[in-house]
């Protein structure tokens, strides 16, 4: 019962934070609009226009950035102060960090699901039409991985500053290799292979297969890999996290 109570409380803390609310609701729309507008002449009269392309890519990019929201929910200075008392309460170690992870994930799930639906319905961005539900689930699994990664970095670096600073490195590597802003696979075979080492690329390829080819051949595989990576992050967090260091 305490677990649910803390998740609810953390969820409310995220919603009350204007910068987190903005970066996970309005900002993705602005990003898609700007990138789509700037590159609109680079896309031919094919099936996908610049807004469709950056619609998918920016949502993947922002889903990866949820890791920052997770580290904020866990270790942001004003929140951390109060969280210290939870360590003294009859709450187990796993409930402490898992509550932050789940509250961020729930927040991300709600905001990104609504965003995807709104973008397709009102802005005509192609997320697969009726297949949008699969894209929502795919993005949600990437959100889970992002939240788990953010929580893990908090457990390792023990402060929001440290965690956020270090998180920028894997997030940048994932997004650059994943070709979120521009494709880099043309840079050679080795780079092309490296691109497939990032979950962002798998999600991107999987999403395009579903949207444009109605092809689900790698869907379950990508979901399984994302869930496995998330579980791995949670297991390492359980080993590393020491409540006394949080205090």
């Amino acid at each position, binding site marked *: *019962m*305490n677990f649910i*109570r*803390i998740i609810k*409380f953390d969820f409310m*803390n995220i919603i*009350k934070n204007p910068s987190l609310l903005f970066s996970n609701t309005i900002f993705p729309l602005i990003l898609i609009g700007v990138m789509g507008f700037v590159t609109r002449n680079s896309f031919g009269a094919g099936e996908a226009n610049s807004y469709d392309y950056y619609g998918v890519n920016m949502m993947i990019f922002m889903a990866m950035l949820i890791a920052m929201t997770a580290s904020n929910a866990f270790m942001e200075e*004003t*929140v951390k*102060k*109060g969280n*210290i*008392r*939870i*360590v*003294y*309460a*009859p*709450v*187990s170690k796993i409930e402490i960090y898992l509550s932050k992870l789940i509250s961020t994930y729930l927040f991300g799930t709600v905001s990104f699901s609504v965003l995807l639906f709104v973008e397709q319905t009102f802005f005509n961005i192609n997320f697969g039409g009726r297949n949008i539900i699969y894209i929502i689930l795919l993005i949600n699994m990437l959100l889970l991985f992002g939240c788990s990664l953010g929580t893990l970095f908090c457990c390792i670096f023990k402060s929001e500053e440290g965690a956020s600073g270090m998180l920028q490195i894997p997030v940048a590597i994932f997004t650059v290799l994943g070709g979120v802003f521009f494709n880099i696979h043309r840079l050679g075979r080795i780079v092309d292979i490296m691109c497939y080492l990032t979950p962002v690329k798998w999600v991107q390829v999987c999403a395009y297969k579903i949207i444009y080819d109605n092809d689900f051949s790698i869907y379950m595989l990508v979901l399984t890999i994302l869930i496995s990576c998330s579980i791995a992050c949670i297991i390492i967090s359980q080993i590393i996290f020491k*409540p*006394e260091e949080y*205090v």
Partner: protein
Amino acid sequence: MDIKMNNIVTVKNLEKSYNTKKAVDGINFEVKRGEILGLLGPNGAGKSTTINILATILSADKGEITILGNNLKKDIRLIKQGIGVVPQDLAIYEEISAEKNVRFFASLYNIKGKQLEKQVKEALELVALYDKKDDKPKTFSGGMKRRLNIACAIAHNPQLIIMDEPTVGIDPQSRNHILESIKILKERGAAVIYSTHYMEEVEAISDKIIIMNEGKIIAEGTKEELNQKVNQEITYFFDVKNVNKSMNKQFYEIAGVTKAQISEDIVEITSEKSYDNINEIISVIIKNGCKIKSMNCKEASLETVFLELTGRNLRD
């Protein structure tokens, strides 16, 4: 959780090391129901380590700890249910109201409904913040935040309250209020472990005092017992007219006098307490043509006791 036994905390042979350094080295003590235990010691004495172990967030290397009749190694959740911790750093949410802070933390102890409302109100009243219940802590003064920090720790009516420097950096009015609140908690039957650097606070509220140094308990007892252990001397101060500095030698001829110091108009005589020699000291002063304007005496304070035992000042 209602236990019949009188001992709230029993610590036996507690040891804790960080790498090769022993932070706590085989300490033993007990805290009884309705008792305030003052924990004194300079930085690095092992107070915070002891407190963190009792607060269940740090595990001991060796030793046996029983809190509220439960073994610390086996029944952590039961123990957590019965203790309240006031950490040195403020552990409150600044962005939500004082009442919501207290209610949220109390609810983590499975208190619900009307009982929760009642206990939240009582906790806020105890620290005199009920009229500010709807205000956010970010608008509070340092002293008010400290009081809210205490309210959050006691709203679930814990039987053991662990306080780590709860009055650091606050105004005297808030400090007095906090000390009064602690006395009320004691009257209600709670046991309190109170760690501080402020000697006068320990003297004012503690039933029993433990002095720690380098991980060990170097003295334990009531304030009077500790004073007796080291305080064998008394110093008399005479404010006199017509000082005759040549009388200095005569004081040393009086049995028990260990030190005599004469300045412009003050005669300071230190004597062993076991000697009843005040009349002789006064007669020496009068015989030498001095006129006594006033007189007072001073026994060693707890600060002196501490210095004597550790060789260090408390705030070192």
